[in-house]
Structures are given as C-alpha cells and as structure tokens.
C-alpha cells in the first residue's frame, strides 16, 4: 500500500503545483478534486478493461495516441470538444442562477435545426460569407435561446420546475425534428435526394472556414466558443447582471427582497443558457456537418452536465474539461481498433468522473483532501423540484 501512498503523494505534489498555477497565476477555482476524480475513474476503467482480458495500459496507450498521438489527432480531439464547451456553458450559466437546465439536449436540437433551416435558405448563397456565417450562428443561437427561454418563462410565471419542463421539452423537440427531417409527405426539411434522413445541405457561403482537415475537421467555430467562455467569466464575476444571477441562484427570496427582478433573471438566465447550446449546435452544423441529423447531438446536453460539474461551473475551466471530454471520445475508436476494447469504456469512465466529482466526499476521503472550496452542487435543496 505504501507505493500507492507514495504515488498519491507524488500526484499530490504535482497537483499542488498545478493548483498554485491555477489559483494564483490563472485565478481559477481549486481543481484538486476534479483531478483526483479523473485519476480514480481511469483506475476503475482499467480494472474493467483487465476483467475482459486486455492489458489496461495497452488500451490506455491506444486511447492516448488516439487523443493526442499526432497533429491530426490533436486537431480532431479539439474539434470534437468544441461543441461540449457550449453545452457545458449552458449548464454552468443556469447553475449559477440556481437553475438545473436538463434541457441542453433539446436546446441543441432546436438551435441545430434552426441553423440548418436558415443555412439552407435559397438566398443564403447570394450573401457573402461575412454575412451568411454570422447569420447562421445567430439563427442557431436564437433557436436555442427560445427553446431554453420557454422553461424559464414557465418557471417564472407558473412555478413549473425547469427540470421537469426541460425533460418534456427535450422529448417534444426530438419528436419535432424527427418529423421534420423524416417526413417525405409532406416534405418539411428533408433532403429528398438523400437516402438517410437529413436536412438539405447549407449554403457554401454559410460554412465556417476550416482550420485543420482533421476528423472531425477543426473549424473557426472554436474561436466563438472559447471567446464566449471568457465573456461569461467576466459577466458572472464583474458585472451587476452577473451579481444578480448569482444572488438569485443562491437565495431567490433575498433577491426579491433586495429589489432584483427574480423572474426576469430566471427567464434571462434560461434563455442565455439555451443560447450557448444553440450556438454550439449552429457552429457544428455550419463548420462540421453541413446539414442537420436528429442523432448528431445525442447525449451532448447530458455530457454538458458532467463537464460543467467537472469545471465546477467555472467558465474558463470548462474549456479544459470539455477538451478532456471530447478528446476521450475522439481517441476511443483507436483504442477499440488496437486493443479491442469497446468504446463504451470511455463512457463508463466519464460517468465515473461525474460520479466522483459530484460525490467529492468519496474523493476527499480517499485522497485525504481538505474541504477546499464550496461545491455549488451540494447542500442545496432543490426547492419545489420534481
């Protein structure tokens, strides 16, 4: 056991240095627990891989090379991660307002279909890219914002809890887009030339320029999403609107008493939250897919929950967490190819990461970490929930 202890101590030192870098240089939230959670999850995943008779190091080595084994792999991993920034940001922003936006999944669909519709409009090809690209991104953002705003309005006006209404809205939009994309009679948005159900391809002018021809390709959308993270960090920490959002999130009663328009903050937060998901979807439609398919964003909203938690709702830390998430998914096929380990192992590891981050008491107990910061996800009761 002592070697494990030493390893822990070593990791602890490394983590300590990283911690100092993150907190003092970058002024980020302490990330100890997240780092340990990732480590622990890989250990559990390794055990699982050994059970099916594969050397976990072989598998992980393949996974690692799939993630960052070369320039193209790195670009692919980054590209895969970009939309997760948006879905995680959607969760994080709502969390700050005390709202649990389970609906990023649906907001991605709403944003995606809107972007695909606008991008495929016939007059789009007459516009220059400098107009068409912002237009498609704004369209997607608006689609997400509206679909996110609905549960906000319901919450504010009727008290309907956003967890329930977003779950319902997820199903509704899924049925909606399926119908729009599948139906041949009448044709709604289906590309009738295609054998698989998808929308018409968007106009060439609305395609985000590619940076690296990787798989998937890395495109300019990354700048939009990374930039947004810094903007959100500034808004939350330094502005009066951010103060209102945070106050409503921590104590809506006191906010109301202090003269903050709680309903307006709730609606605005949900709409902004949905907008981030919509932007992520639009950037994918425009830069990666070129058309809309209902299955494209499957689980991306739920992954956003995990990423937002991993980053402890810190918008800048979300960039790193999303990179980890996306690159694992991007690297998994090589692991399957070389080590014959199902890519679902990555899914299990990711679920474990979320588990250990959420149940940080387990991690603190195992690694003897002090209570460093207040986890925003604990000790809160979900008032009137479900």
């Amino acid at each position, binding site marked *: 056991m002592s070697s494990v202890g030493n390893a822990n101590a070593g990791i602890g030192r490394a983590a300590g240095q990283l911690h100092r870098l993150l907190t003092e240089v970058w002024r980020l939230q302490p990330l100890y627990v997240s780092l340990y959670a990732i480590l622990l999850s890989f250990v559990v995943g390794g055990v699982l891989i050994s059970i099916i008779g594969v050397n976990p190091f072989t598998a992980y080595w393949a996974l690692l090379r799939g993630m960052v084994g070369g320039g193209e792999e790195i670009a692919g991993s980054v590209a895969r991660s970009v939309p997760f920034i948006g879905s995680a940001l959607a969760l994080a922003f709502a969390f700050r307002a005390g709202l649990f936006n389970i609906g990023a999944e649906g907001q991605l669909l709403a944003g995606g279909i809107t972007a695909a519709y606008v991008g495929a409009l016939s007059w789009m090809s007459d516009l220059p890219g400098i107009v068409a690209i912002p237009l498609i991104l704004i369209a997607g953002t608006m689609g997400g914002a509206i679909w996110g705003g609905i549960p906000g309005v319901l919450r504010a006006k009727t008290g309907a809890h956003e967890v329930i209404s977003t779950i319902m809205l997820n199903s509704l939009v899924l049925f909606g887009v399926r119908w729009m994309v599948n139906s041949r009679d009448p044709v709604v948005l289906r590309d009738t030339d295609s054998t698989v159900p998808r929308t018409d391809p968007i106009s060439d002018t609305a395609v985000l320029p590619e940076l690296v021809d990787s798989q998937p390709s890395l495109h300019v959308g990354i700048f939009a999403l990374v930039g947004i993270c810094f903007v959100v960090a500034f808004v939350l920490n*330094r502005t009066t609107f951010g103060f209102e959002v945070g106050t409503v999130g921590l104590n809506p*009663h*006191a906010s109301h008493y202090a003269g903050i*328009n709680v309903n307006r903050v709730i609606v605005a937060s949900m709409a902004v939250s949905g907008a981030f998901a919509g932007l992520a979807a639009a950037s994918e439609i425009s830069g990666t897919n070129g058309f809309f398919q209902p299955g494209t964003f499957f689980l991306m909203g739920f992954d956003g929950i995990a990423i937002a938690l991993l980053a402890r709702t810190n918008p800048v830390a979300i960039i790193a967490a999303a990179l980890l998430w996306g690159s694992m998914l991007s690297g998994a096929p090589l692991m399957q190819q070389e080590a014959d380990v199902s890519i679902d192992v990555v899914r299990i590891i990711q679920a474990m990461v979320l588990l250990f981050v959420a149940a940080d008491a387990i991690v603190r107990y195992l690694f003897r970490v002090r209570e460093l910061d207040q986890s925003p996800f604990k000790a809160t009761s979900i008032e009137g929930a479900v």
Partner: protein
Amino acid sequence: MAQAGNSTARPVLEIEGITKTFPGVVANDNVSLTLNQGEIHCLLGENGAGKSTLMNMVFGLYRPDSGIIRVRGKEVHFEDSGEAIAQGIGMVHQHFQLIPVFTVAENIVLGNEITRGAFLDLDTARRQIDALAERYGLAVDPDATVGDLSVGEQQRVELVKALFRDADILILDEPTAVLTPGEVDDFFEVVKSLTQQGKSIIFITHKLREVLAVADRITVLRAGQVVGTTTAEGATQQSLANLMVGRDVVFRVDKAEPDPGESLIRVQGLRAQDDRGVETVSGFDVEVRAGEIFGIAGVEGNGQRELVETICGMRPATGGRIEMLGKDATGWSPRKINELGVAHIPENRSKHGVVAQYSIADNLVLNRYHHRKFARRGVRNGAAINGEAIALVEQFDVRTPGVDVAIDTLSGGNQQKVIVARELTGDLQVLVVAQPTRGLDVGSIEFIHRKIIELRDRGVAVLLVSAELDEILSLSDRIGVLYRGRLAGTVDADDATREELGLLMATGTTGEHS
C-alpha cells in the same frame, strides 16, 4: 401510576455534567439538572443559551459528548428519539413537528402505529385519541388535516401526540410563543392539570413572567452553563433577568416624547394573500407619521408577514391602496419603494435578509449594488464596495474578522447588525421592521432598539411588527393590534395595558362592544 401532587422530591429525570459542543461552539458546558415527579421545572435562558440543545439530548436527537442522563434512576444512552419515547419522554418542539398533509390521527400514530394484521388500524387509533382528548381536556378532531388547523389546535395535537405515547416526562420548548396572553393562561391550566395526573414537565422559556406564573422550580442557563437553580417563591423578575443575562438589565427603554410630523405611510383597505392563495390581510388601514413608532402587535399568523411584504412591494396587493411619502405606491416593485426612501428589516433573516454564502461586503450592498457609487455601466467597482463595507462594519459594531468573509460565519446578532447597517444607511424616511430582535441575545437586542429609537428621533416613520408584546410596549408610541388581517384597535402606548392588548389579540375586540 404515581399520584404525586406535592410528593417529596422523587427525581424522574437527572442530568449530570452534560457537555455538548458543536464545531466552534460549546452549547452545553457541564450542565446538571433534576426533574422531580409531578413538578413543573422551568428552564430559563436567553436565546442561544443552550436550552433546546440540552433537551434535544434528553429526547435522543443529539448525543452528549460527556455526562450522564438518568431516567427514573436508570442511566440511559439514547440512539434516537424512539428510545427516548420508549422511556416515557415526550417533547413538544418550538417549531411543531407535524406533517401538514396528514390527518391528525396519522400524525399522532406515526412511529407508534396501531396495526391489525399487517395493516394500519386508524379506527382504534381514533378511539384512543378521543379518549385522551377527553381525559386531558385537549379537544382535537382525529380526521382533520393538520395543515388546516390553527396554531393553537396544532399545539394540542403535539401534546396528544406525546400523551399517546404514554409520556410522563414532558418537555415543552417555548410553548407559549404562538399563543395570545389569554391562551397562555388556559395553557398553564392544562399544564398544571397534567402534573396533577402524574406528569412531570420541563418548560423551556425565556419569558420571565411565565416562569413566575407556572414554575415549581427554575434552572437558569447562560452561555451553556447553569448559573442558578431556585424556586418560584424565591425569585423576582429582576433577579431572574440579572441571572439570565449576567448583568443588570434595564427593562424600560429610555426615549423622549414623540414629535410626530406629517403622515408618511398611509395604508387603506389593504388586502393580500399568503402563498397558498388564502386572504390573510383583509382590509387593513394604518397611518404612520414622521417621527413616531407605530407598533403592530398580534398573534403570529394573523397576516403580519403578508402585511409587511405587501407594504414593501414584495407581494401584490389584491385590494386597497398604499401611500408612501404622499405617493401612491400600490403595486410598486420592492426596488422602486426602496429607492423612495423606505427601508425594510425583514422578519426572516436567513431567508430574506442575507445571502448566506456572500461576503459581508456583498450583503451590505445587496440592494444598492447597481448604484453609481458601486458600479459603472454594469461593471462592479470592488474597491468602492469594500470601502463602504469597512466603514459600515465599524459604524455598526459588527464583530467580524473582515468584510470578505461569508456572512454565515457570523453569529445571528452580528448578521442582524449587518442587515440593520445596510437598511439604515442612506436617505431613509420610512422604516418597516418585522421581528427585529428574534433569536438575538440581550446585547444585540438593546443595540437594535437604540438604533430604531434614534431613527424615530431623526424624524423617520417607523412601522414595527413584533410578536413580542414587551418589545411593542417598550418601543412604540402608538400600538395597533392585528387580528385576522385587520387592525382590531389602536391605543396610545402610554395607556396600553397587557390585558387590553391581550384581549384584542385574542378576540379582535376589547370586549366592551360584544
């Protein structure tokens, strides 16, 4: 069982050297106390003196760090309250432990269910409850839903709950807080009749008058320690107060004659609903002038909360008119009312008054964060906020290591000072204040009372709502009684008597007209 009456002291409950610490606080420090068969033993102490903590240990909810509890001579170590109940201990908590959606019968049997086969037998339970109710004179309807009952009725349910479990040691935690002076007298009769039937009672309170009216013996607790045990005959209010606080206590607040000016609050026919949509303010009228304190007395639950929240814009008025500083402020938002010069010290400190996780500085600007002084074009000015906070902490004597610590690390009294500091800063002309000293120690109470009188002397119109009749009597210039959402009567503070106010609180009339 025993027919004790005035039996020679036979202890049924002995507490010896109990110590209990919570992180950072010694709640009980080597506390000892003996309860004799058939006596009413008052446990007296300020808020936070450790009375409830001690009794929660006797009832098995907390475990002592050290010390011994003996029930009828036998040492006990309770793992949970089920074991305490099995030993014949019953407790009526200050905050009723009832389930509003359950019926009275379901509430009473919960945890000690009567069964027929594998199934609940509520019929038998009903009969037993009726029998108990008759025997002790505690009328309750087993089939009523608890949420529909008045506080007085709920208290009876709590008592029947304990008696249903054959409790012969009863712990009553601040049982009179929710009752009118008249109801308190009736309640004392019930308590005395219980002792005549062999029950022994620990009566927790911080009200000296009640202690002298009901107690056989008195134990005074201060800062977690027993500072004296005495009998009711040997004590006076003054002696008990000094013992409780640890220094001489002045009962009367000194204040100058009022010099009322123009009327700043004028409320006419106000109507409002509670969270369940039930109208609790039904045609309320009041007028408060500059430079006077208008106190609103009344039993809690007569619409106080809704009244205050509606006046301050937090709750929509369903009828009537609110005029502030001569302007029709009906339907205004809390912010708009606040910016008119109306400050509001809320009843519920942790729910409305502060954001627990925020720093003292952020809490001090909670309603002014957007002012030009603290933010420019939507971007906050941290330095200005800190500077303001440091000044206010100094001025209002908030005991804190710094302005950037989270406010929930402070004591209740210091948190309340932060709220008072925030609300009394700026150009205010009207102060609406609800239960300003609830749960505070005597020092903080005196500080806040002084501040309120200072404001009144500066010409601020003060509307004071309090459940503590003593607070109303000592601060107010005029007193109104709130009864079922209406102003039942207004009296000059100088002419007010407890009896008259008590009658108004209980019946809504002074009796002369009915």
